[in-house]
């Protein structure tokens, strides 16, 4: 690890680590194990749980509702992660090469969606998508009346509308992340690329993209996980509707555990969700590991 002077097996260290570690074990690791335990039982939240083995997993994973929730997560990942990362990469590489006045202001604004409570932004977007809201008003103003619709209530559009909120949330964040990454790239590499006669596109793939590999890993990890969980945004905009066209696993967990009294099934979905998140976390770490 580090070259700092260290005492071999410093027992004192445990005293420093213990408080944080116990907080983490008690309120994160232990509940996680409990979730596994719950997922193997049938329990209504009250009374005695009944052991059912893996039955909750079988029932839930074969339920069309949960399957569609998982599918919606995939679509949301496109909007929460892939589109923002692409947008961020493109804009960051276009912006990075020169000094611009007032960038500080733009940075503040572009990062803003990351810090405002999702309940608030969810409410703002509900209004944006309202039949009389800004988006439809604009469409009508430019003569596209036929496109105006209640976006969040439309089976064909609601999921994309929710997804777009995700893009709004993460695109600026990705861009700022990549700007930081690009600034770290040795300018000499760009010079060399120029001398080799590379155009901007070739330069992007040869120099910029490899240079921001760590940031790419961070951005994808954060945004993909954001797309996978996505409870707040969906809860505040559509609550999974219309029908079940925008439901996501987190919403199903909430509904099953706290509304329908099927705690075991909810826990099973939670475990599936956690597994997906861990796979994403580890996968990204492996994919974007910087070799040296």
């Amino acid at each position, binding site marked *: 690890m580090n070259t700092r002077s260290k005492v071999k097996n410093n027992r004192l260290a445990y005293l420093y680590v213990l408080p944080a570690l116990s907080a983490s*074990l008690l309120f994160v*690791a*232990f509940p996680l*194990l*409990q979730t596994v*335990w*719950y997922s193997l*039982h049938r*329990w*209504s*939240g*009250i*009374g*005695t*749980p009944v052991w059912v083995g893996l039955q909750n997993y079988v029932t839930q994973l074969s339920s069309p509702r949960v399957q569609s929730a998982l599918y919606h997560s995939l679509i949301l990942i496109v909007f929460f992660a892939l589109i923002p990362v692409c947008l961020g990469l493109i804009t960051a590489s276009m912006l990075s090469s020169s000094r611009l006045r007032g960038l500080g202001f733009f940075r503040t604004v572009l990062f803003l969606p990351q810090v405002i409570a999702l309940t608030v932004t969810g409410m703002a977007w*509900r209004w944006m*998508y*309202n*039949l*009389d809201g800004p988006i439809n008003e604009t469409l009508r103003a430019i003569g596209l009346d036929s496109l105006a*619709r*209640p*976006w*969040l*209530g*439309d*089976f064909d559009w609601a999921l994309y509308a929710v997804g777009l909120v995700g893009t709004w949330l993460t695109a600026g964040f990705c861009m700022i992340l990549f700007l930081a990454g690009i600034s*770290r790239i040795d300018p000499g590499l760009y010079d060399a690329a120029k001398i080799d006669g590379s155009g901007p596109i070739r330069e992007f793939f040869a120099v910029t993209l490899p240079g921001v590999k*760590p*940031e790419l*890993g*961070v951005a994808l*990890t954060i945004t993909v996980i954001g797309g996978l969980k996505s409870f707040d945004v969906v809860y505040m905009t*559509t*609550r*999974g*509707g*219309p*029908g*079940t066209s925008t439901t996501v696993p987190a919403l199903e967990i*909430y*509904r099953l555990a*706290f*509304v*329908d*009294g099927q705690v075991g099934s909810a826990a099973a979905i939670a475990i599936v969700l956690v597994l997906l998140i861990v796979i994403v*976390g*580890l996968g*990204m*770490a*492996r994919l*974007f*590991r*910087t070799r040296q």
Partner: protein
Amino acid sequence: MNHNPVPDTRPTRLRLGGRRAVALVASAGLAVSLAACTGGQQNTASNEPASTEIPTDPVELSLWTVQIGPAQEALQNLIDEYEELHPNVTINLEYTESAAFSDTFKLRMSEQDAPDLIECSQGNYMGPLVEAGLIISLEPYDELYGWSDRIAEGFLGPSRMSDDGRSLGAGQLYGLPFAGQLTGLYYNREKVEELGIDTDFETIDEFTAALDTAKEAGETGLMFGNLDGDPGKNVWEQVLSGYEDKQIQREFVQGKEGTDLVTDKAIESVEQYQDWGNQGYFYDGVEGTSRADGYALFTGGEGVFALDGNYVHGTYSEAMGDNLGFTLFPRENAADDPQANGATEKPYCISSMSENPDVAANFLDFIAQEDKAQVLWDGGFVPLLGADSVVSDLPADEELLAAWQTLSDVDGMTYHLGWATPSFQSIEMPNLQEVLANRMEPEAFVESLQQNWEEFYGAAR
């Protein structure tokens, strides 16, 4: 400061750590886990016999409600009156928005500091609470106060529940209702007159014709915002009550063995609802508009009709005054007796966590008197007792009261289907949205309801 920490979650280490961490905590964890599961509730009320005596020391109660606007004000007025009579008693009104309420009432009621009094809808709310022992039987108080002598069994019936929480209408009294509830047609009087619509609809076809008239004039026929799926469900269930006989709805809700909701009439009612949508009689943004926004749009002049329960009466009449009208929804055939979805407004139940069930019951008895009719009526509630004595300000009030009379005379209440099972509405509401979007066949919709019912009652038997 400038390094990206992510790659530090490098796989080898985390995999190793994960496996060992599991082993480490597992043994300690699992033992405690089930203990937490069964951490249940105790009945603080059960030890002492019920009494009409209330203590003179300071007592604090809380009452949990979903009522809004004038209805909530009426509750507050009743509380104020009661507190004046019993200065040592304080009753706090807890409000929760209705969608959040139905999400969380079971959780809230299972906590040590659960509200003493809860407004709890029959069946789907009351059932789970009875099953879990979270609300107390009101039988002892009924004996002491004689509620069932005052309030007709037809109204008390839906507030009875078997002890396993599965059979509505059978068993002990768990809730006390004060007010009737019915679904009917609210209308914008000016618009109706402008369009030359006669609101004395004899048949559903006549009403459909009126919707068409509205559409031809560029108006929204039926106004509601269905983002959360509930208002649309209310509309359809009333249409169902127009087509199907009340008996089947009641037996469905009561869980009577062999009940089959998949009837031609039920399917026809879904087709009618779907067809209205396809004809463009509903608000353009129906599925993207929240319930509250829907109310606001109607009182603000959007739409000719609104089909909803009289729990919106106070809100509508406050905003629209003389311009608001009310009439019963017609039947398929003019010869049939009127039927309306509903029965009573949510009854009040007493938490088994309550430390003062006697005071809570005394407060309920205080409301269940004829002389409280006017206060309830001013809040838009149709009082079960003393309805003939109330004074109304607005034409819509008179119309609502008359409708309630008509309906009571023929015992035309059809009960909300949602009372049938705890998970019923989470099937009914999204599926009905599918129907409205022409993504589900009406027959498949009714079958999905029947299936939910059979899963629940099948498991019971």
